[in-house]
């Protein structure tokens, strides 16, 4: 029984990271109707920035906040410079541009920081808490993610800027007529997504260690989580990410050798999608003929 609780709680902690990245994917999807395959590599790059800052002697939380800020600016720049020129191109063109971005970020990180695996410090105590039910790091990750989610919710729900961003994503034409600068709102959305990804990267790095390819698996799980919850619903994406995290952990512990862990977790998700094609909480898209 204790083992089960342990596994579920540590699944929730990894799930929180997937949920953050899934949320970042949903934010960009809602604004642009395409999935940013480079989201994971953007988070990886942010994590390297955090590592550099910590190495330079900054205290962890100062480095953390600075990284989030830099990632935000980086996200805005990426939207302005790389994504904007293909704004009206077909969806598959977007996919290829995102793959290009993924490859570039990965290669540049490997070039600057080399491909050797680096250790990343955890700001939380590593000793087990509550009679061994959860490690300090896992609890810290869950708390930080929760705080971030609440901040984001408050931002989108209660501030004028958040409202403007939602309007720009939902109905660009009307938003434009109401005087909202839709282009900048999209760029801000990218910035926020990059910042959220940065938090996910820094939170997962102490567990996965730091290397340019660390996020590929995480991104796939986040993608799965976003779709499982329904890509049109931010709350669903968060819940989907958590479910995927727990599922992955339980499958790996109880069902099958870890070499097929990824495949099995994905097979479960596919099964759910075949039964419920627009995800657990997504709206069913109704097409007008």
């Amino acid at each position, binding site marked *: 029984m204790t083992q089960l609780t342990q596994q579920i709680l540590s699944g929730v902690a990894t799930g929180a990271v997937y949920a953050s990245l899934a949320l970042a994917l949903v934010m960009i999807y809602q604004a642009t109707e395409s999935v940013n395959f480079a989201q994971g590599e953007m988070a990886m790059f942010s994590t390297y920035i955090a590592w550099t800052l910590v190495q330079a002697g900054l205290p962890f939380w100062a480095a953390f906040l600075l990284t989030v800020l830099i990632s935000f600016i980086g996200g805005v720049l990426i939207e302005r410079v790389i994504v904007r*020129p293909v704004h009206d191109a077909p969806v598959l063109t977007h996919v290829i541009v995102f793959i290009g971005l993924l490859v570039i970020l990965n290669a540049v990180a490997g*070039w600057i920081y080399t491909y050797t695996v680096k250790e990343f410090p955890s700001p939380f105590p590593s000793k087990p808490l509550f009679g061994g039910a959860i490690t300090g790091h896992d609890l810290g990750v869950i708390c930080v993610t929760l705080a971030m989610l609440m901040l984001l919710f408050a931002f989108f729900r209660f501030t004028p800027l958040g409202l403007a961003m939602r309007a720009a994503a939902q109905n660009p034409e009307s938003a434009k007529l109401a005087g909202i600068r839709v282009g900048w709102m999209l760029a801000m959305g990218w910035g926020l997504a990059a910042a959220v990804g940065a938090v996910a990267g820094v939170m997962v790095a102490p567990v996965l260690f730091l290397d340019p390819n660390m996020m590929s698996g995480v991104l796939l799980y986040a993608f799965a989580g976003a779709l499982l919850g329904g890509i049109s619903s931010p709350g669903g994406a968060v819940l989907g990410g958590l479910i995927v995290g727990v599922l992955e952990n339980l499958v790996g512990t109880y069902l099958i050798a870890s070499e097929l862990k990824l495949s099995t977790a994905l097979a479960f998700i596919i099964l759910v999608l075949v039964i419920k094609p627009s995800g657990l909480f997504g709206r069913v898209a109704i097409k007008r003929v």
Partner: protein
Amino acid sequence: MSAPGTIVSALPAQRIAGLDADFWRRVLIALAVMIAVLLPWAVSDYRVFQFTQAAIYAVALLGLNILTGYNGQISLGHGAFFAIGGYAAAILMHKLGVPYYLTIVPAGLAAFAVGVLFGLPALRLEGLYLALVTLSMAVATPQFLKYFDHWTGGSQGILLRKPAAPLWLPIGRDRWLYYQVLIVLLIAFWAGSNLLKSRTGRALVAIRDHPISAAAMGINLPLYKTCAFGVSALFTGIAGAMAAIVTGFVAPDSFNVFLSISFIVGSVVGGIATVSGAIFGGIFIQFIPNIANQISDAAPWAIYGMFLLGFMYVMPKGVAGFIKERAIRYRQARESADADEAR
């Protein structure tokens, strides 16, 4: 290499220099085939091997193009069908001693069967959801190949003997393989473009553009969509079998996610929903990484990524789409000039 051919075909009943456009199309295809036949004698053995690979990728991309370009079902996991074709051929040769040239058709059929089976659940999924499912397929492929190691040889893979040219033929092994692949490529492109021009091809496009109207016109959606999956897998599986024969080696890690991503990249960069685009795409995914490597040793993939972005900015519809657009513009300019003269 038959590229410019299809462009002219987009301009029906057009007469150029007093001759039928269809005639010019055939001339261009013949020219392209002639270049392809003479090519091995102009370049080194190693380059011949690279062009063989590019031709194999072109066949695989044609398969992906049928599914994603013409039928609108996105697949980020065609590396899996490539792997099935490759392993089917390797197992037939290695375990059952079948001669290499007899493995291509069964390998294609094996991929076809898996493709149809996979197409059934895919019927319920669209767009991103299908993208996720096919991407998972790509991720799972190496794991599965390692898991069933009794047949697949585990992570070591299967080593095959590369077929040599018959003694009476005075050409080296690389050129011999190139010509055989070229023959398969010509058959595949002939069959593929005929299929797409036929009633079936028009049905596939109709399903992509407007599924509800297509159903209303009496097209059996589930049948056509699963068949599109199957046929697409057939082409890609045949390409996989040829790749196994030409490299003489199959191993799980050569069928990773990156291969599947390369396929979709090649397909879009070459020109999605065009037959000739598959050739440009094959050349792209074979040669651009090498060129990137020559430009920068330190970060070749960054250069590759920039090539991708550059191609997409300049030619959002791919190489074939770009040429097609240019040709149409040129024709319009000519027509308005002629009209001015007549006035």
